[in-house]
């Protein structure tokens, strides 16, 4: 490793990521066309503008709901606290929901008071992105189930499609994103807290989402880690506290297969 180069790049990276213009830029050359500070300014402006623009693309309803100025201030504070850690800009916003929900920075703390739904909207929009570019997989089909001998049903291994997420949200933010996608007013003034459990997944080229009852969410959470149908029935019986557990497990299994939620797990 060459030390002078490492030090020079460390200084340059620091200048790009700093919120204030640097007081001095030793090693940079300025001339009659442009000073060293003006030249560095091209990179400083591009650094934040490029990443904040990518965040706006990944959280479009949040950006519209907050307005450009508020979103830009939020994104700048987030970027300062969370420099990108992946070669692809695609992942630059991975920690934005947690930043809004938990960070002490004024841009996040004030947002929790003025727009208490913002963290949930960010979580939902991140889940949409994560589902959208998850890898393809071979779905479990109704024909697969029909072909399965009855004595093997207990052992049927179930797994959920890659990139799918189960979210517990305190605000009905799906409606905000849906209104944004449909180019309709966002109706934030009438948004009221209402907890829901939401499942987000991709089917072919469309990201799907729906609300789940708590008992189905419990079963799906287990299926996300891989589960055999026999185990799912036992869990369903606990959930329902009655003898209809197997029937409930069979009904959710049918729904999941119809929705394209399950993959053939060959364990």
């Amino acid at each position, binding site marked *: *490793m*060459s030390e*002078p*180069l*490492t030090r*020079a*790049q*460390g200084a*340059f*990276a620091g200048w*790009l*990521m700093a919120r204030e213009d640097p007081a001095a830029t030793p*090693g*940079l*050359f300025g*001339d009659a*066309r*442009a000073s*060293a500070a*003006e*030249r*560095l300014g*091209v*990179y400083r402006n*591009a*650094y934040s503008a*490029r*990443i904040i623009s990518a965040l706006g693309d990944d959280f479009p309803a949040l950006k519209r709901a907050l307005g450009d100025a508020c979103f830009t201030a939020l994104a700048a504070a987030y970027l300062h606290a969370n*420099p*990108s*850690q*992946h*070669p*692809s*800009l695609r992942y*630059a916003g991975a920690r934005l929901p947690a930043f809004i929900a938990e960070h002490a920075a004024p841009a996040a703390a004030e947002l929790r008071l003025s727009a208490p739904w913002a963290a949930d909207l960010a979580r939902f929009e991140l889940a949409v992105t994560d589902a959208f570019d998850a890898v393809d997989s071979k779905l479990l089909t109704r024909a697969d189930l029909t072909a399965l001998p009855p004595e093997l049903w207990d052992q049927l291994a179930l797994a959920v499609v890659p990139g799918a997420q189960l979210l517990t949200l305190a605000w009905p933010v799906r409606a905000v994103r849906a209104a944004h996608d449909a180019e309709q007013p966002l109706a934030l003034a009438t948004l009221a807290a209402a907890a829901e459990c939401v499942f987000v997944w991709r089917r072919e080229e469309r990201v799907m989402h729906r609300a789940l009852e708590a008992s189905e969410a419990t079963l799906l959470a287990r299926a996300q880690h891989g589960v055999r149908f026999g185990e799912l029935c036992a869990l369903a019986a606990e959930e329902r506290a009655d003898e209809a557990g197997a029937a409930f497990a069979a009904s959710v299994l049918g729904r999941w297969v119809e929705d394209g939620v399950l993959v053939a797990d060959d364990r």
Partner: protein
Amino acid sequence: MLHGVSLDLGASDPLDAKYLGELAALAGRFQPAWLSDHLCWTAHRGAHLHDLLPLPHTEEAVRHVAARIREVQERLGRRIAIENVSSYVRFTHDAMSEGEFLDAISAEADCGILLDLNNLFVNAHNHGIDADAAIAALDPARVFQIHLAGPSEAGALLIDTHDYPVRDEVWALFERTLARLGPVSTLIEWDDRIPPWERVVAEAARAREILERVCGAEVRRPGTAEVAA
């Protein structure tokens, strides 16, 4: 061809083994004719800056970058090409010209060159370098491909934004470059403000006309390349 922005050939962090492994798998799957990335750095101590950041033109940087290119080439089992980038700053300790820097690295790493003529033009404007001298410094056999594009203006500087037509000065540089290098595969880049299809095709036709006129050879159209039996 596969053209990347994240190999981080000039950085001081170790090469990203995961990225390199994924790139090797991708190249194995698609078998591109060329695989290229940029002569720059993009990350430092794990923070990705998502820009093509400039390197000082020093012997130290030549040795550092060439060693990393060799490491990449060994991992991929093939030669790569490196692209010269636009820049907005120069370093007070630069010890060689842009052409000498590019030539020294490509020779020491034994890699190809993706020669971006718009980037040379932008640097000529921003730093007063001599673009023709930079081209004269290169080994013609190493130039795999040429890129053309149009920059935008920000105050007194030109910015490499790929959102304007190729400038007349770059077309002229393209002619002089071909006269020196002979026929080289050429790509015109548009990233934003993409014009109507007819204007995109017209720019490609202009490049093809110059290639045929200067090099005196019929240029193969995309999709008509011979495939080995």
